[in-house]
């Protein structure tokens, strides 16, 4: 099912006022597509992931909507969302190590979890072992404790567990960031494999690593200070970035083999604005080399080429 996020606004309540962590994020993920969401820390990418499945007590849904296959998700209503969680919308957390109960054998833990969601463990068990084998794990892992598995194995167990009900939307928030390169690749490829087999509908792959996102995502959305800056098919975004922020971000990432002696790369001067009292208009204007008068008004997030949307007055 397609997922449409339009102008989603989620704020955090703090003693000093509301932090506008997500303030107009829009994106569209097609059925069976993997959307990579990238940005610096504090850009709202994790808030987006959390909003789609469960808001914590400090978060408040201020505006905008999320539609899953045409039906609106009641994201602001904790109780109404319960019916969607796990069955329709599922999550792979960043630290699988802390997601698994250390005092239970994995099989028992999965059983308890499934029963709590109204699924009989005995019915799901065959499918569970089949999928564990797909990601290269023996059915014996069910008899083990989490501490007996490596980080990559635990992450794959969590992947199988969270997709067992074939969710329409899977949120992978930094799912591979804590792993080293070989494991990272294995888990990322398992994610793509599950999508290819139709175990998950749409996927939001949230990461800070542009190169990793480029490997597995079909489309990429770049976020900045709570808003979508640019969204495009992955290859298009890497080859023809249009938003000045995307361009600067791409040129700030050293690639394997690049050296300072050949070409000195530059970072982005300045730092992201405070979201407690964000600037008006374009939020990138203070760091942007192209900024001009019109940036005082917020640029719309418009389509400039098929499937390529940019929020910048200077993008043509």
């Amino acid at each position: 099912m397609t997922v449409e996020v339009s102008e989603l606004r989620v704020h955090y309540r703090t003693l000093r006022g509301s932090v506008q962590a997500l303030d107009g994020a829009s994106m569209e993920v097609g059925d069976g597509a993997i959307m990579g969401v990238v940005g610096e820390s504090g850009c709202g990418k994790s808030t987006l992931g959390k909003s789609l499945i469960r808001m914590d007590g400090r978060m408040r849904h201020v505006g905008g909507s999320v539609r899953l296959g045409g039906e609106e998700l009641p994201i602001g209503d904790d109780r109404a969302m319960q019916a969607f969680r796990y069955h329709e919308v599922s999550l792979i957390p960043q630290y699988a190590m802390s997601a698994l109960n250390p005092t239970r054998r994995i099989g028992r833990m999965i059983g308890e979890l499934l029963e709590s969601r109204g699924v009989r463990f005995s019915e799901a068990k065959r499918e569970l072992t089949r999928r564990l084998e797909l990601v290269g794990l023996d059915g014996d892992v069910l008899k083990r404790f989490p501490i007996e598995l490596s980080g990559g194995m635990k992450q794959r167990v969590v992947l199988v567990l969270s997709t067992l009900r074939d969710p329409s939307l899977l949120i992978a928030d930094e799912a591979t960031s804590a792993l080293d390169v070989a494991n990272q690749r294995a888990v990322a490829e398992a994610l793509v494999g599950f999508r290819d087999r139709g175990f998950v509908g749409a996927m939001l792959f949230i990461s800070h690593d542009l190169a990793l996102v480029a490997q597995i995502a079909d489309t990429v959305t770049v976020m900045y200070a709570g808003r979508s800056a640019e969204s495009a098919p992955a290859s298009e975004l890497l080859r023809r970035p249009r938003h000045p922020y995307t361009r600067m971000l791409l040129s700030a990432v050293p690639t394997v083999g690049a050296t300072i002696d050949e070409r000195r790369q530059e970072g982005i001067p300045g730092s992201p604005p405070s979201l407690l009292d964000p600037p008006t208009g374009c939020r990138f204007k203070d760091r942007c080399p192209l900024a001009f008068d019109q940036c005082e008004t917020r640029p719309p997030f418009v389509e400039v080429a098929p499937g390529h949307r940019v929020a910048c007055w200077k993008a043509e």
Partner: protein
Amino acid sequence: MLTLERVSKVYRVGTFGTQPLNAVRDVSLTVPPGAVVSLIGESGSGKSTIGRMVLRLTSVTSGTIAFDGRNVAGLNGHRARKEYYRHVQGVFQDPFSCFNPIFPVDRVFELLRGEYFAATPDTEWRASMRRSIERVSLDPGQVLGRYPHQLSGGQLQRLLIARALMLDIRLLVADEIISMLDASTRIDVLNLLGDLREEGLGILFVTHDLSLGTYVSDTTVILRRGRIAETGPTGEVFASPRHPYTRGLLASVPRMHRTWAEADAELDAETGPCPVHDSAGSEHPADPVEVGAGHFVGCFSNDTCPE
């Protein structure tokens, strides 16, 4: 300047420390002045242990670590150790945990002053502190007097480097110093290391990220389970990796303009026999073998190699 000679570290693990864990095995390397040596490896490869041994935070089981010809482990007395830290300093992964959150960031400088510059007059001290902060491209007015939570990770990390620069520092151990920073500020810290290298500072750069390891580095050391798998001039190691482990690692690193499938196709080329066990008669059978100018390759540890 810094020389490691067959350094090993064995940790005691398990119940009552009954089992040995070889964290580092027979590692030899040198860090000359004005050069960056990258230690690259996955988790558990022993890269951080080497950094910690150089900083004397962990004892050495066997082998020697020498700084200007003097054995680092043999430094006796408070005075000699203090003198060592005047020249050798470390910066670590998490800048937030290096600052006390209830004091302004200036405190790290004040502590340094108490130890090393007690006799320096106040005005002179403040001037040299500002110079050092400007050297890491920070504005002293913007950072001094602030609390750690008011500054970004990149700013805090640069402050820690500025603190180290106040001393008469000649070797910097940088252990994963940019892993926690954002893409847009990472490159600034790397450029800073590049500039310090130009000024003659030797840097031992510990990282798990191959793309960050190449950007500022003259020599690359790839570690695998505590042993050197491959070492040599950075360009050489990355252009023509010989060890199957290095090749696998390079193929797994996500890159922006090359898919994993393309990387695998290149990987399929023949790696050849293990050079260590192919050339019989070396003194230590497990030592890396020179395959090009300064380019050494360790044992492949595959089926044909005797253990």
